[in-house]
């Protein structure tokens, strides 16, 4: 890999060690700290021997050798190995196989793997005794071509069966006599013990009695502990059962709400209250165990066969999908085309059409310009409160930058006020030269209209917007400031209930316009 040799000089960490090809590129392309740049985005860790050895063990495992190389690499990458470590492990793996591989190491892993898997799986129970025959089989198998692997697999199975039977017979013959011997020994021991006991005298009796008592006490303790554990488990199960019940109840509610939504879909007023309700339910459902959802989520995201059978459709997946989504998935799985799909020709009418020349010069990005654009910084300066509350055309004129857009940038004034309340002091004073931070804007007046709209009925809200803009704003704005504070700080949960219905009604009106 080309990155290999590049990495080694970078490991030393000095710019001087950088190959010369970096320098001209850096000079040409990058600015500030250019010489150190490429080294930062490269793994400069030395190869970790332990990781490489773990990887080699992993790769030497017969089951692993049956999998495609890309998955093996992917697994190691997910475990945190660097490219160099993975390459090193791959290099080492063929050297460590037990059977001597004379030739054809790279094509063989496939055949060896499949043959090995079969004998290994069948001899699982007889692992210790069958290890030798399996080893022999594997060595026999590995030196052959893939074509013959079925025959050799059959040989392997047959041989194993014979050896298994042989070992079984052997063991039977070995075990039974041993068992009998052991029984006899025990019996004889007991007889001896009885004799010994009468001979040993009271001390031995006392000792045995004490030992028996201690054993009994220990057993009692163990019994107690296990009893406690059982109790706690029972309790846990109870709680879990209750939790499941509660979740079921929530599910039921959700289902009923979703059906209600379906019914009310046509009505304009539905979305507001129900969406908030749904959201709360979703919040409650979050506590469902993660594991199956992670899997379901992954399946959904994979969508490896979008047009055929999409994965993740067997279970509802992690996040609750809309009902129409499930319907469409089912339709597609059946092979039907959804009715609303049209045939559209989206190919370029003139593939060789010239790309038009740009009309505007590109703008510098905020993070590129260390110096703030002076006009905009003045705009965002936190002015006195009295001025700040005023939303007038003059400010628009200042804000409106040179691009010639006539649109009054109402959206520009609305910088976050809430989260920066505690940082006001910093911001009011020195305007940072860097554009990284800009002092917050007071809440704009337009929000006052929103606040009005929330409190008053729909029609009135519309009139409010168009009519007097000089209404007493300050109190409204402070109220609304508090509301916004609540809104953002509490994550919107509290105030959505109040706001959503009013908001959505106005929203719907806006949409209809």
């Amino acid at each position, binding site marked *: 890999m*080309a990155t290999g040799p590049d990495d080694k000089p970078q490991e030393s960490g000095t710019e001087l060690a950088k190959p010369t090809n970096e320098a001209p590129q850096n000079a040409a392309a990058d600015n500030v700290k250019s010489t150190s740049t490429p080294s930062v*985005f*490269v793994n400069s860790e030395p190869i970790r021997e332990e990781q490489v050895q773990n990887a080699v063990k992993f790769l030497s495992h017969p089951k692993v050798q049956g999998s495609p190389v*890309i998955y093996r690499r992917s697994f190691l*990458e997910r*475990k945190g190995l660097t*490219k160099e470590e993975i390459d090193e492990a791959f290099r080492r793996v063929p050297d460590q196989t037990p059977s001597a591989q004379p030739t054809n190491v790279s094509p063989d892993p496939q055949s060896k793997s499949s043959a090995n898997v079969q004998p290994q799986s069948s001899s699982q129970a007889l692992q210790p005794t069958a290890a030798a025959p399996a080893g022999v089989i594997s060595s026999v198998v590995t030196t052959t071509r893939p074509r013959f692997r079925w025959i050799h697999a059959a040989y392997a199975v047959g041989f194993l069966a014979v050896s298994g039977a042989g070992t079984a017979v052997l063991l039977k013959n070995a075990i039974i006599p041993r068992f009998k011997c052991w029984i006899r020994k025990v019996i004889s021991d007991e007889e001896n013990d009885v004799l010994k006991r009468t001979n040993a005298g009271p001390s031995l009796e006392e000792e045995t009695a004490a030992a028996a008592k201690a054993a009994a006490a220990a057993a009692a303790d163990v019994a107690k502990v296990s009893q406690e554990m059982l109790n706690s488990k029972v309790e846990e199960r109870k709680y879990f059962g209750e939790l499941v019940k509660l979740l079921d109840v929530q599910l039921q509610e959700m289902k009923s709400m979703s059906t209600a939504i379906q019914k009310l879909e046509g009505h304009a007023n539905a*979305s507001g209250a129900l969406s908030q309700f749904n*959201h709360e339910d*979703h919040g409650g*459902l*979050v506590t469902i165990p993660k594991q199956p*959802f992670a899997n379901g*989520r992954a399946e959904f*995201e*994979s969508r*490896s066969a*979008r047009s055929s059978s999409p994965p993740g459709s067997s279970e509802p997946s*992690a*996040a609750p999908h809309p009902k129409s989504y499930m319907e*469409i*998935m089912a339709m597609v799985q059946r092979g039907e085309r959804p009715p*609303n*799909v*049209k045939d559209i020709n*989206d190919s*370029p*009418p*003139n593939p060789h*059409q010239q*790309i*038009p020349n740009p*009309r*505007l010069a*590109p*703008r510098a*990005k*905020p993070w590129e310009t260390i110096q703030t654009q002076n006009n905009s910084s003045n705009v*965002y300066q936190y002015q006195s409160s009295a001025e700040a509350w005023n939303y007038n055309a003059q400010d628009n004129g200042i804000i409106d*930058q040179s*691009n010639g*857009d006539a649109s009054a*940038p*109402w*959206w*520009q004034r*609305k*910088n976050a006020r809430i*989260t920066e309340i505690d940082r006001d002091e910093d911001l009011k004073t020195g305007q940072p030269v860097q554009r990284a*931070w*800009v002092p917050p804007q007071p809440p704009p007046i337009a929000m006052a*209209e*929103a606040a009005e709209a*929330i409190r008053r009925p729909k029609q009135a809200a519309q009139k409010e*917007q168009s009519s007097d803009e000089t209404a007493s704003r300050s109190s409204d704005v402070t109220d609304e400031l508090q509301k*916004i504070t609540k809104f953002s700080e509490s*994550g*919107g949960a509290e105030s959505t209930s109040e706001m959503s219905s009013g*908001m959505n009604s106005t929203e719907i009106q*806006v949409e209809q316009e």
Partner: protein
Amino acid sequence: MPIFKAPFNGYSVKFSPFYENRLAAATAQNFGILGNGRLHVLALPPTPGAPVAEIAAFDTADGVYDVAWSESHDSLLVAAVADGSVKLYDSALPPASNPLRSLHEHTREVQSVDYNPTRRDSFLSAAWDDTVKLWTVDRPASVRTFKEHAYCVYAAAWNPRHADVFASASGDCTARVWDVREPGSTMILPAHESEILSLDWNKYDDCVIATASVDKSIRVWDVRSHRVPVAVLNGHGYAVRKVKFSPHRGSLLASCSYDMTVCLWDYMVEDSLVGRYDHHTEFAVGVDMSVLVEGLLASTGWDELVYVWQHGTDPRAP
């Protein structure tokens, strides 16, 4: 706040780097499973109460999963289409003259496109065929193909300062850092135990990446010491679909999730969640922060709505 109702399920929104009031929305019919797609170019109204204007709309045979504005041409857009093609549109030309180009090399759905903000001449496409391709606007074929991931690549993002460096996020649970001058990836971040759906670079610290995953968390990594994340942001209830660093504040990032919320985080702060918006009624799948207007956010979801609002305000307010 302006709200746009699209005919199809929303998949992605991007603000224009040239016009403060312009944004593009990528939508797909039938949740993107099977159906047509449409690319909208929208203009925000001058007054708050007015509706969003649609400057242009381009229909596609298959769903549009992502859109990127050109950094060199003010009206050029790149669309990532579910049939594996990447299409170039010019919003200044009528629909009959569009698309300008259709680049069809990916063999599976193209999930993400990103335009180079420093060099301004090239863009990346990430697709479910496990590859990332590098293109320039003037060439009909891809310049480079990066094939290393073991599964679908869900996102690719250019480094904001280094014109040759980009990162990709994949369903094989790794994120990779690449340099276009190198044949293979230069760094592998085994960032999560589940699929990584999105990633973005910190605009003010070019060594910091945020990855968003199916495991509901966002992890912030420093590529200089990438074994342990700088921060783990938990709070979403379901998989996090998209993550975007603020162009104005170095530690601020926005995310949207299948839990229908858009969240704002400050990863350098103990209590990282700084804002949460639950305006969507279906999966929130697209979020963007404006480069030209500080604090302006846009989001879209499967509820077919595009919201644009200022951080700290209510997206649903008129």
